[in-house]
């Protein structure tokens, strides 16, 4: 039998809510798949569309950006910027021909350890079903890894 595809998922989490939510999921021992690598940022509003593009360029199969719920951002309106940028970048990758479902934006508070585990489970399964992300290489030779 062929080996099960294990997607590589990058999660960019804001320090004050979503990272704390991930921490809570950890100390509470909620089960979630080990496919996700986490980067902690001070606020989800610091995530540029470039970071998302760069993650795919470096071979991520899925990218999750998570921050505080609207109204709860510790820098007041940082996550408004997140919402604007991420909505845009998702549509941009769709237009370029990449499946926009490989990208997800979620609001996860520090109390939502359960939600964090659920999001990771759900997203991992989604990305697994989509298979490996297409390469960003524009040269056919490089794209095939030759």
């Amino acid at each position: 039998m062929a080996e099960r595809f294990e997607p590589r998922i990058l999660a960019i989490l804001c320090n004050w809510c979503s990272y704390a939510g991930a921490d809570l999921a950890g100390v509470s021992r909620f089960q979630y798949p080990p496919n996700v690598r986490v980067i902690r940022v001070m606020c989800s509003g610091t995530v540029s569309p470039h970071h998302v593009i760069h993650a795919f360029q470096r071979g991520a199969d899925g990218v999750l950006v998570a921050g505080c719920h609207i109204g709860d951002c510790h820098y007041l309106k940082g996550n408004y910027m997140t919402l604007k940028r991420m909505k845009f970048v998702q549509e941009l990758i769709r237009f370029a021909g990449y499946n926009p479902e490989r990208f997800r934006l979620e609001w996860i508070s520090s109390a939502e350890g359960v939600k964090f585990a659920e999001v990771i489970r759900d997203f991992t399964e989604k990305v697994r079903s989509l298979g490996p992300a297409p390469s960003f290489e524009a040269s056919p030779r490089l794209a095939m890894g030759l």
Partner: protein
Amino acid sequence: MKTKVRQLLEEGRVDAFIAYKTVHGLPFPTVFTKADVGVLETWQPFKARYPVTKLLLAQARQNPDKTFGVLVRGCEERSLYELFKWNQLHPDKVVVLGQACPQDLAFYCECPKPYPDHLDYGEAPKPVQESRRLGELHGMPETDRLAWWLGHFNRCIRCYGCRDVCPVCFCTECSLEHKELIPTGKLPPDTSFHLVRAVHMAGRCIDCGLCEETCPSHIPLRALYKHVNSLVEGIFQYKTGVPDGKSPFTMLGEESFLPTGVR
């Protein structure tokens, strides 16, 4: 150009004026000062295009106290509006004269507004509202679209011509040359090169098409930037290249820009 530009220069309303001079039978952008009023030519419609507002920006940066006049087409006026909004030029330091484009140029450019708001020379030609190429791309299934783009991107020689000619690429440090962001030493550059530029053109590209015309590899860049701007318009109701408003990416907050519905 003879009378109006001459008047502006002689009355001292501008220190210099960027218009055109015929060189080897072709109109060529030229900076005229008071000393040159004698060589100003009569205006005639023409199809040659240059990044004149980029030349203006370079001049203005070198001479911050001077006031410049410039003769602009529709797209060039749109680029001025963006340069004002992005604080690259000061509206008090720029005097605008406008010229209409010939109708065949408007068709060639698929131009939505082939004349400036300030129209001093020529008659406004008919605009073209639909882009055929964009329509074609929107109709394509996702996977075909990826293959279509890669088929074009793989010809990129990373000459930066698209950036260098662009009237609204005004940054002094360019993300396209950021070594951590976009891998160097790779030809053709991967998709991230083009997507990063697309991100920067959102709320900025004024659809002049110079990038596509300049590209030695004939990559249909304009369709990419046309689309990012239609996204910005669709999501944030922000129109690029008009005098009012500010790009939604330049400000924090602003609930009114948020999409309606469940967040």
